[in-house]
């Protein structure tokens, strides 16, 4: 265990990076998911086809491949563009943080598209009809009737998306992101104790997963406090 002394600091900062990726990708994932769901629900055939293509691509491609493609591909593209302006430039790359964050947001966002779409369609049509019959406008119906029911429906699968984002962060270590798995690799070259180091990584991610799961459970309880069967 003492072998870990001196590494706790690095692991801590690695964990901070995981949290940072989580926050950034959570925001983007919601954004992509809402845009995708909006497109699929829009009625415009072009929008639907585009959204469907988006979903098919990012649900059918391995995450690691998306990350590699985005990272190396963007580096090549940016370098080429930069060289137009300044031929001296040898290499421009996108920080692994952003290449990775955008990659996993696109991937989980494609699942979130389905979740949000399903939540929208899952709202009890009777409630909507009642609201319209009472004279509420489309916007009012959306804000006061649709959204409250939608987030409750979406919550369990959304919790899973958040867990996916967290775990996919480990993949970004492959392109050099300085999170916990990356720290572990460095620690191993010094200490020669791969099992110990990787177990710590596992424990850190398990900690994050647990926090997310408990939070979702808490929010679910809050959401259901007025539902049938709630005590």
């Amino acid at each position: 265990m003492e072998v870990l002394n001196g590494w706790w600091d690095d692991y801590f900062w690695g964990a901070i990076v995981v949290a940072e990726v989580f926050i950034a990708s959570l925001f983007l994932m919601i954004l992509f998911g809402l845009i995708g769901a909006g497109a699929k629900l829009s009625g415009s055939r072009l929008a639907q086809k585009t959204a469907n293509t988006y979903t098919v691509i990012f649900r059918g491609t391995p995450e690691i491949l998306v990350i590699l493609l985005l990272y190396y591909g963007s580096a090549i593209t940016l370098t080429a563009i930069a060289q137009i302006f300044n031929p001296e430039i040898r290499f421009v790359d996108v920080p692994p943080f952003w290449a990775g964050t955008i990659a996993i947001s696109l991937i989980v966002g494609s699942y979130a598209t389905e979740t949000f779409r399903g939540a929208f369609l899952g709202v009890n049509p009777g409630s909507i009809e009642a609201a319209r019959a009472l004279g509420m406008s489309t916007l009012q119906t959306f804000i006061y009737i649709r959204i409250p029911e939608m987030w409750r429906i979406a919550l369990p699968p959304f919790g899973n998306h958040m867990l996916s984002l967290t775990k996919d962060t480990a993949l970004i270590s492959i392109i050099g992101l300085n999170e916990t798995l990356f720290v572990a690799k460095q620690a191993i070259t010094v200490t020669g104790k791969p099992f110990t180091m990787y177990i710590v990584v596992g424990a850190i991610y398990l900690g994050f997963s647990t926090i997310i799961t408990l939070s979702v459970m808490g929010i679910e309880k809050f959401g259901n406090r007025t539902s049938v069967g709630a005590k």
Partner: protein
Amino acid sequence: MSFDFNLILQSLPQMLAGLGITLQLLLVSGFLGLLLAILLLLMRISGKLYLNSIAQVYIFVFRGTPILVQIFIIYYGLPQFEAIRESMFWHILREPTGCAILALTLNTGAYVSEILRGGVLSVDKGLLEAGSALGMSARQKFIYITTPLATRLSLPAYSNDVISLLKSTALASTITITDMTGIARTIVADTYAPYEVFISLAVVYIIFTFGLQKLFGVIERYLSRHTVREE
């Protein structure tokens, strides 16, 4: 910046040479994982606290940590222990393929057991009551009522997990396995052409995913043939 189609034509056959390994990882881990999942399911519904708890902890750990970390722990971490190196399992555990299959099996087993459990819980309670009223024992109800119905109910979620498993096989490339992704990364390292190589590889995975979805669709329709009204 041009898109080098020639390169695609050259690299595809090379990458497809890795298809055999990808399939091997998918099918072996899928099958063993399913067996493990059934075992965990039976432990979860056994009614015996110690079995249920062990299964719950196992599932919690394997669903809460990134699969990449699990792969690293098994491939890089286990050799840290002399006991492992001298055991009879060593000849499997020193090979990257054996480690990858082990990691994928342990991981998918945890996810699939929860899917099966969801299916079991979804079986209409009334049918089980009818079985009880007719005098069937708990074991008889589980075999003749629960299992056939839960299997059909679990299928959609299970098919999603198989697709996830396919995508996870790409992670085997991180421990030197020459599956399709592993070969692709080598080609990109040589040619600096991430777009051509990775995009064409992504297309291969997408086609593969599409095929799996169609296959499961057929199976689902076959199993539901008596339970869906033909209008």
